[in-house]
């Protein structure tokens, strides 16, 4: 067979399976969700076309809108998480013994199964759990079930999310910091710069892009929270999230409203697209700046 024929054959053969899977389980669902979002459909009865009513219902219904607002807790949590990661990455970038041990220990929670993490912290916050035990060492005896306290529980859940995901940011930041040549540090130290100055003028500017990237990922993560609250509270006591609600209404709840759930899925899609667009704009400006320099 000629190489030209072979080329065409190999392109078709090699790409057909991955593209088929992609179309079938990624693109087709998106198209269907867009279509479903215009329907009033419980999954069992006949669907009726309702136009944009599902989208209007999202804005009008507090039951759906409140979970979306809960994303704010996770977003603020993610900002704190990045600040902690940046701080620890900076400390780890100085001369320190057991560096790999520390890095590994702090990263490992990222790899632990989300269900396991949820259960670890369900036990941590329960009446006779770990937190109350620790508090009792300081003479504060309580049998509070922390996850049931309305004004606290979302923050606690965001805290658990920090515990699990901080290591990811840490590894990213360490990677970026390591790519800075050590000559620069040494020159700065010879010139008498202190640690804060080194951070402010050398480390921070060179990892600005990776911080921005992690920030974008944080927004996407905050609107997509599912596992941790689902396991720890089942979305009770005002801790539901947009995705928990969507899955409930669209797949495994008692009364399905597939149209409404699909509209919610599409709203999520729109938010993610918007953020991605923002990312592209910000990065493009960065690149142009660099070109001008």
């Amino acid at each position: 067979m000629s190489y030209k024929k072979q080329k065409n054959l190999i392109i078709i053969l090699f790409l057909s399976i991955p593209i088929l899977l992609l179309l079938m389980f990624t693109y087709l669902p998106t198209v269907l969700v867009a279509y479903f979002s215009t329907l009033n459909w419980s999954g069992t009865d006949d669907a009726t076309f309702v136009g944009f009513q599902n989208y209007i219902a999202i804005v009008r219904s507090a039951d759906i809108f409140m979970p979306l607002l809960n994303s704010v807790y996770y977003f603020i949590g993610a900002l704190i998480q990045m600040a902690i990661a940046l701080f620890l990455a900076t400390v780890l970038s100085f001369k320190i013994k057991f560096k790999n041990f520390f890095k590994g220990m702090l990263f490992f929670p990222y790899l632990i199964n989300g269900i396991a993490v949820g259960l670890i912290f369900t036990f941590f916050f329960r009446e006779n759990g770990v937190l109350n035990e620790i508090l009792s060492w300081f003479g504060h005896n309580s049998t509070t079930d922390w996850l049931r306290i309305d004004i606290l529980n979302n923050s606690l859940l965001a805290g658990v999310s920090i515990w699990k995901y901080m290591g990811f940011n840490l590894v990213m930041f360490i990677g970026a910091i390591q790519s800075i040549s050590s000559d620069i540090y040494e020159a700065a130290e010879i010139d008498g710069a202190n640690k804060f100055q080194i951070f402010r003028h050398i480390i921070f500017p060179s990892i600005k892009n990776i911080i921005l990237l992690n920030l974008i990922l944080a927004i996407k993560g905050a609107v997509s929270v599912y596992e941790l609250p689902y396991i720890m509270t089942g979305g009770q006591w005002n801790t539901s999230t947009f995705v928990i609600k969507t899955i409930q209404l669209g797949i495994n709840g008692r009364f399905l409203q597939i149209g409404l759930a699909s509209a919610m899925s599409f709203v999520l899609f729109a938010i993610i697209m918007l953020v991605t667009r923002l990312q592209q704009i910000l990065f493009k400006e960065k690149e142009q700046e660099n070109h001008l320099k």
Partner: protein
Amino acid sequence: MKNYKYKQVITNILKYTIMIMAVLVVVVPIVPIVLGSFKDSVEFQTSDVFELPKSFTLSNYVTAFTDGNMMMGFINTVLILVISLAISILTGAMTAYVLHRFNFKGHGKIKALFLIAALLPSITNNIATFQIVSRLGIFNTRFVGILLFSGTDIISVYIMLQFLDNISVSLDESAMMDGASYFKIFFKIILPLLMPAAITVGIIKGVAIYNDFITPYLFMPSSELAMISTALFNFKGPFAAQWEVISAGIIITALPILVIFLISQKWIYNGLVLGAVKE
């Protein structure tokens, strides 16, 4: 000079104090789970959470494995993981090879197809995936898991592409001089050289599949099909009051990942950084 030394001692103390405190935050919530998993149920309820186990029993682990369905969970997870990883890595390498070595009409579009796919909200799109899976008649089979995990994602493709950059095209060309077909070049030359990329992708994806909850939870609900995540999740019902058994389940779930992590730290770090930076 004395002042300088004094300052350095302070910095050192501060440095290690900060790191040790951070490590404590990670470890403290886990310690009671480890200790508790070895206590019998009476001791678990009467002892302090940080107390060392006196009864030291392995029965919780036995219960978790048998009554807790974790044995089944492991078998299903390994089965689904191995098959879908093999498919996913092979098709990922094939995709990357074609995209890297050939120029053809639609080249850019296909790359974009993978890129945009990463932006679609796969969790909530499950509403429609659920309908598709039901219509195909594969709901509640191991096949669903395999099918959904076998897809190639842009990050795997990018990691492969990056390694392909370092495999010289002259290798392909000299093989062509000898009359080797493109298929032979791919399977005999490129694929073996892509091994490091395959391992990187395999570990990152393998951990992700092992830890995935939503796919088995939504599409494979029956207990014989439980994967490790769903097996552990189901502990919440029958063992709700038996935290010593849940603790054992948590340890059983996390231990294999700890071992993988200790063996392959470098691969995991590199894979994550490579993947995310490319995104």
